[in-house]
Every structure is written in C-alpha cells, then in structure tokens.
C-alpha cells in the first residue's frame, strides 16, 4: 500500500446513519475479479437520484467523506473500500464505523477518522456553509482541521495502524518477520487439518 501522511481537499457530507456496505457498493458489483474500477458502483443505487449529495456539483472532486454513525456496517466486502478510494476518497470521518470496514480500510490506506457525533455535526455545518472549504485529515498529527475556520479536532489511531499508514507497510511482510514463531506454533498445535478427509476430487474418503 502507498504511504499516507495527509489527506486534504473538499469534503462531502453524507448525513445518514447506518450506511452499510451494501449501500456503498451493491452486490451486483461483487461479481468482478478485478480490484479496480469500483468507483462507478459507489452508492450506485442512490446516485440515480439527482438530489443525492454526490451529484451536487459544489462537492465535485471531494477527497473526504463525512458520514453519520455506524458507517460501513454489514457485509465484509472490501469492495466498499476499493469503491470509495477509486472514486477519489482518501479519508472517511464519522462518529462510528463497522469493525470489518475499519479493518479493511486500514489495509488499503483509506484513513478512518472517528470523531464525536457533535464534532461531526459541527464539521458538517462548516462544510455546508461553504462547500469549497478545505478539510485536512492529518495522519501524522492525528487531527482533522478546517484551516479557514480555525477548527480542529484530534482523532485516535491505533499506534500500529498509524505507523502502517505513514510508512505504507505491507501487513503480510510485517507478519512474516515472525515466521519462526509461526513455524514453532505449527509444530505444537493439535488443531485438526483437512488432511485425509477429501480425495483429489473433493469427495469424502470413507473411514
């Protein structure tokens, strides 16, 4: 993944609670075997509606999405993260997030900034007041800022997630530094494997 230090740009307010991953990217899009091109499917069931906020020209080119509580709940589809990033978002700000979505985001470098609900409301008010206002999500300093308004709020990031974002580290590479411990665990575990249950064609071997 690419290193991320700061995301800055316009922000778009999505004032809805419980935006689940089925809304972010409907299942029709999950048939694809590629990892790119999902931006066209982002919120596709809502985008037909001309009044949907992503169709509002004042927010065109936004890189920060500001959403309601429990953003990204539901299905584990990482396609939701791919769609948000492919569309151009680099950060999502909300009062709370679905667990798996949060995890998936951290693997791809989509910055998840959790703020209190009242702070999110303030931020939304600032954006709506002037959609051209620059919003800054600073990973290194763990701050969300609206410089033109002198507004800033800290957000929390797990130390490891922050390091990974800042350095663009690959999780698999990090884990494989513990190769020796994995191998030694494997010699002592008694958890059963699938060995001997199925033949080459996947049929159950009688025993």
């Amino acid at each position, binding site marked *: 993944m690419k290193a991320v230090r700061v995301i800055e740009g316009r922000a778009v307010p999505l004032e*809805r*609670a*419980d935006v*689940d991953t*089925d*809304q972010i990217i*409907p*299942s*029709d899009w*999950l*048939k*694809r*075997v*590629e*990892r790119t091109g999902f931006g066209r499917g982002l919120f596709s*069931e809502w985008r037909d509606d001309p009044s949907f906020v992503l169709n509002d020209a004042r927010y065109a080119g936004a890189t920060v999405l500001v959403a309601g*509580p*429990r953003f990204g*709940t*539901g*299905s*584990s*589809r*990482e*396609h939701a*993260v791919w769609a948000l990033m492919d569309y151009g978002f680099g950060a999502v700000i909300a009062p*709370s997030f*679905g*667990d*798996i979505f949060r*995890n*998936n985001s951290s*693997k*791809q470098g989509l910055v998840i900034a959790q703020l209190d609900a009242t702070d999110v409301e303030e931020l939304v008010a600032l954006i709506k007041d002037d959609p051209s206002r620059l919003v800054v999500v600073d990973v290194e300093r763990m701050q969300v800022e609206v410089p033109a308004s002198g507004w800033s709020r800290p957000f929390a990031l*797990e*130390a*490891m997630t922050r390091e990974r974002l800042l350095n663009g580290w690959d*999780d*698999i590479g*990090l*884990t*494989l530094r*513990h190769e020796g*411990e*994995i191998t030694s*665990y*494997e010699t002592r*575990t008694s*958890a*059963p*494997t*699938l*060995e001997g*249950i*199925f033949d080459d064609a*996947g*049929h*159950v071997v009688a*025993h």
Partner: protein
Amino acid sequence: MAARTLYEKIWDEHLVAAPEGESAIMYVDLHLVHEVTSPQAFDGLRLGGRGVRRPDRTLATADHNVPTDPLSVPVKDPVSRRQLEALEENCEEFGITVFPRGHENQGIVHVIGPELGVTQPGMTIVCGDSHTSTHGAFAALAFGIGTSEVEHVLATQTLPQQRAKTMAVVVEGPAPEGVSAKDIVLAIVATLGTGGGAGYVVEYRGQAIRDLSMEGRMTLCNMSIEAGARAGLVAVDETTIEYLRGRPGVASGDEFERAAARWREFVSDDDAVFDQTVTLDAADLAPYITWGTNPAQVVALDGVVPDPADFSDPDVASTTQRSLTYMGLAPGTPIKEIPVDVVFIGSCTNSRIEDLRAAAGVARGHHVAPTVRALVVPGSHRVKRQAEEEGLDQVFLAAGFEWREPGCSMCLGMNPDQLTPGQRSASTSNRNFEGRQGRGGRTHLVSPVVAAATAILGRFATSDEVSS
C-alpha cells in the same frame, strides 16, 4: 490460572506472538474461501510471489454467485461465470480442495463447514464473509474478514488481531411455544442495536440458548454481526458433541471420545468475568419480523408498523421515517395485514435441514397464495439430498413452492434470484438493507415457519394461523 471466558481460552491457545507495541498474531486453524472475496487475494499472492501456506487448512466452495436453476442450465451471466471459473482455477493452482457448482459437497460456506464436521470446538475459523460468526455455535472463534486479510491468511495462516471485549447475552428461562432461534436473535439484535456489539465477542448463554439444537445455535450466532459483534459463541455441551459424532471431518471410535473430552473444556469458567452482560427473559419473546431497513428495526408479528412520531430522539424519528418511506409502509398498519409478493426460505441463517422441516411442517397440505412467488433454496447439496430423502421437496412442490439448487440466492441477490423494485418479501435471511435482495426490493426478515405461513396466506402470518 485465573478464571477465563470461552473466548479468552480460545484466544490464549491461538496466540502465535504478541510483539510489544504491535497487534498480536493469531493462528487460523481453518480458512473457508468462496468465489466473491477471494479472486483479488489470489491475484495478490501471485503479484507478491507468495504461495498458500496451508492448503490443508483451507477449503473452498462456490456459493454467493451460483444460479439456483437446474444444474443442466449453464451460468448465463458471463461475469458471474468468470468468477466461478476463477475460483476453480485458483484452487487448482494453489492445491486447495474446492466444491464447484453442482459438487456433492457444495453449498453455502457456513452450512458446509458444520455439516462436514470440519468446524470443531476450540478452533479459530475465518472466511471472507461477515456471517462466519455462524461457526461460533460450535464454540469456535469464527469471524469475517476482508479480501486483504484473506490474502494475509492464505500467505501466513495467521492474522494480526486485537483482543476483543467480552459480552454475555443471557436469555433466561425456556422460550415459549412457537418462538424459534430466529425470533430469539431478532430480539437480541433489537435490544443491542446495530452497533451495540461493536468491539465485542458475544457469548450466548442461558436456558433458552442451551435448549436450542445446533441448527438453532447456528441461526443465533449467524446474526451476531447484525448487532455489530464480529463473533458469537455458544459453549460446548452434549448437543454439540452429538451433532459432530459421525461427521466426515471428525474421528471415530476412541479417538472421537478423546476429542470430545477436549472439546468439553471449551466453556467459560464458572467465575469468569465478562466486560458486559445483557439479560433477556425468554418468556417475553414472540415471533418477530423486521419492519425497516436495518435488522434492529424489529416488531412482533402481532404488532403494528411504528410511527416516527413515537420517538422522542429526532435522529431515530427521521431514520424511522426514511425506512418507512423506502419500505412503503404507513405507521399503525397491523403487520398481519401487509401483503407480500415473494417468500424466500434459504440463506446461511435458515436453510438447514431443521429449518426446511419446520417450514414444510407448516406448508404440508396447503397451497401458496396465488399472489405469491415462494422459493425454497436448501443451504447445500447435502441438505437438499436429505430433504429429498425425507420427502420435503414433495411437500413444498405440492404446496406450490419452487424447490431450487443450493446457494446464497436471494439472500443477497447476486444471482438471478432477485426482487424487482417495490416487491415485498418475507425472507429467512439476515439482512434487510435497502436493495439487498434486488434494487428497490423491500425485505422483511422472519423465521422459516413465519415465512411458510406467510406464503400460504399471502400476508404476514404466524404458523398457528395455518390450520394443520
């Protein structure tokens, strides 16, 4: 050693390393794979020049995308077909056992793991699907992961993990007649809310849980994610052990007894402390249905559609209004007066043999209302074959239900089984999100017996309304 919860026992046993200042590394005993969340992970392996570390701990099946048409009908959608082929090619390349469409062991990933006996107590199980929590019914720590994590597990057989908080959800006393596992879990999701379980692993306890069959416990654990929890657990007891006896993936004879003795340790210690405890009284429970567009929006079948004006919190009132508009419902309408267009009996929540028996018990000798299309989609080929041996297919067919090939089907509407805009369904699946079963479709989650009764009466109904 200090008293531990079931979760803590499994966690401790699977800790590979706990490096200072980093996430712990957890070993994965079993990785289940399906066609939708894996192709990009296999691509990642190829790009990184990596292999699959433990093909003997990896099992794949086609489920999300498969049509439920007769097997003689080819997969018409070329994009779906390509994805199904990619699964087979990837498994062939990396030496993974795979059950493609039509294979005798193929089915929904969370149905086949348990029925093949490869889901066992005390294991850690992951899959690129949020309903992996289903396997927690066997006291296995099981949760859904994203595609990057799928690649991570394929390459390392481990995952970086934070230890979760523990929550006990206790359902005290016996459940009343007519209340199924689905009703219990809908009540739990309504109580916790869609975010109440976030950060927790939930252990379900109490008499109403102990009384459930393994199928019922799977239904229960399946929907843990609907309350925001990544995993749900039920402790091992003799119900667990008897279910596993004789399954293909478990040993037989003395070796089975030795395994069973070890499994019996996968219970929370008597004096273990949970971070949070939520208690429900089973006597208060009734058959339930969701009325809105998230699974915590639940009402009793005997109830009415809620009124946004009844909620003092303006956010809840506006969410309620938004849901009602999408669902095309007027406040105060009795649930049992709402007509439905489609009934879907299937999904990893309710497509096991016991679910089909329960639904067939209601349908027997009746006929689906002329205004309703009703589908029964068994969870796997094994379930389908057993149902046919028991004659359940004939009961359904005689009653005017469609009897289809196994897969996820209308649970997520990736295959051709979809609602059309404005259609209303009674569905035994787990998600009633906007558009989940097809664009503009209106989903109401119910138990198998409520689904069957609804199909027959053409409006939401409880099974006691259908004379036997």
